């Protein structure tokens, strides 16, 4: 019987060389839910996403996706896993040498043997779903940032994935485009019934659309809960993060040993002498 959880990370640790990025992560994502992983820059949240997509393998622990351990897959199994997965990259990662049409058609043409008229219909439908029908002849360079992100979203859902991964989907967008992308992510997730993981540091927009939130800091999960729980969460770290305060448990200043006076070569106690 399949587990209720589409993704389960059990005791996962990962390091780049000597530098530990994630330590003993335990995380469960139920089927059909949209879950956000939040944390500051460099907290290891993108690494978490790459462990789920199989781009990285953990040094320790299990990454179970739909009952299979991604960390133990052969290349062929990994590619089969990825065929059921869509990923939206931070800046879209559209193929700059292909038109919008060919970008969305790319996964369809690579993985199916559908006749070209069917490919065309599918592409138009996907573009319609993100509100960009009519742009199929444009090149990526002719699109605004928000439109490029939407085309990338259409490409990611081209094969109706069972799992969607979003890597910082709101970065660098104006408020309107950001709202559009958030709405699309929510609508597509509800319509396709996919399980989805979104890595982000945009607190307010994300809390409006996700079912559950995990907070990551210094390679560990420090809090989790539904958006309502998180808003009411008394933990000082989450409070600082959600409120966007400059100082708090996460310090404003970079930790240094020396004093400012020492770095400026001011003699100690000089002002009082």
């Amino acid at each position, binding site marked *: 019987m399949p587990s209720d959880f589409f993704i389960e990370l059990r005791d996962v640790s990962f390091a780049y060389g000597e530098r530990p990025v994630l330590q003993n992560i335990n995380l469960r994502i139920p089927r059909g839910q949209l879950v956000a992983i939040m944390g500051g820059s460099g907290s290891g949240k993108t690494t978490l996403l790459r462990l789920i*997509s199989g*781009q990285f393998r953990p040094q320790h622990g299990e990454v179970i996706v739909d009952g299979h351990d991604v960390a133990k897959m052969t290349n062929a199994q990994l*590619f*089969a896993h*990825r*065929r059921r*997965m869509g*990923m939206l*990259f*931070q*800046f879209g*990662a*559209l*193929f*700059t*040498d292909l038109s919008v049409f060919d970008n969305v058609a*790319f*996964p369809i043409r*690579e*993985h199916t043997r559908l006749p070209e008229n069917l490919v065309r219909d599918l592409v138009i439908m996907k573009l319609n779903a993100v509100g960009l029908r009519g742009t199929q002849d444009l090149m990526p360079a002719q699109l605004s940032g928000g439109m490029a992100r939407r085309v990338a979203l259409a490409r990611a859902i081209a094969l109706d994935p069972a799992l969607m*991964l979003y890597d910082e989907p709101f970065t660098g967008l104006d408020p309107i485009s950001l709202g559009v992308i958030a709405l699309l992510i929510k609508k597509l997730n509800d319509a396709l019934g996919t399980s989805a993981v979104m890595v982000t540091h945009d607190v307010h927009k994300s809390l409006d659309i996700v079912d559950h939130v995990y907070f990551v800091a210094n390679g560990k999960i420090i809090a989790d809960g539904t958006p309502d729980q998180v808003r009411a969460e008394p933990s000082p770290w989450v409070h600082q993060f959600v409120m966007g305060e400059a100082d708090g448990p996460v310090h404003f200043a970079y930790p240094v040993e020396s004093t400012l006076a020492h770095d400026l070569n001011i003699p100690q106690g000089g002002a009082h002498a």
Partner: protein
Amino acid sequence: MLEPLTAPLGKLGHLTLNAIARLGGISRFLLAIMLNSGQCLLRFSLVIREVYFAGVLSLIIIIVSGLFVGMVLGLQGYNTLERFGSADALGAMVALSLLRELGPVLAALLFASRSGSAMTAEIGLMKATEQLDAMSVMAVNPIARVVAPRFWAGIISMPILAALFNVMGIFGGYLVGVVMIGLDEGTYWSQMRNSVDLHSDVVNGLIKSLVFGIAVTLIAVYEGYEATPTAAGVSSATTQTVVTSALVILALDFILTAFMF
């Protein structure tokens, strides 16, 4: 105390190890390309597209350079040969120097700087903008889809470009020798026909350009694929492609010439 003595040795050792590691990396990359070439050879339109970018778009520079090199050969060759009273041999001289050396080598140098650098920059930028990652996440192997078609396109384009360079060079020599200076047209062509051997000159020259094509394209795709994914990284990878290709072309040319002629 011994550091002034050991430091240069250490540096030499470091450089040698680096060079060996790079050679190992590039060999493994070649193996990966070979193992992943099936798809692009079956879907040959992928290769054709790259032949257009690497080969067809290089035509202008190859044609113009070939023509001028041939014209210079005609002028210099005539001046020198005339001193020994053998200006009649101009056709043979132009053809032999082009077919054996200048054609393959210069065409490969031009190819490295025009198409090789473009391949490195394109693949490097695809890496920097996460396009290769996106492809791999879509369960499409970037080596099979991006690298292998460019590699085979380079191998196909290079001998054809070199042959075209030779033809244009011979025509350039004809323009200067026969049209400008007024040598006998029949002598120009018949001297050429008598002294050029199909196997030892034409075929050996083509083999050279095939080897150069493999080397230049492999260096170009490797540098792009392994580039540090930043603006500075892609720029230095592009430079590296042109510099390494030039040195490798000249070194391989010496080795091949020693074996062939």
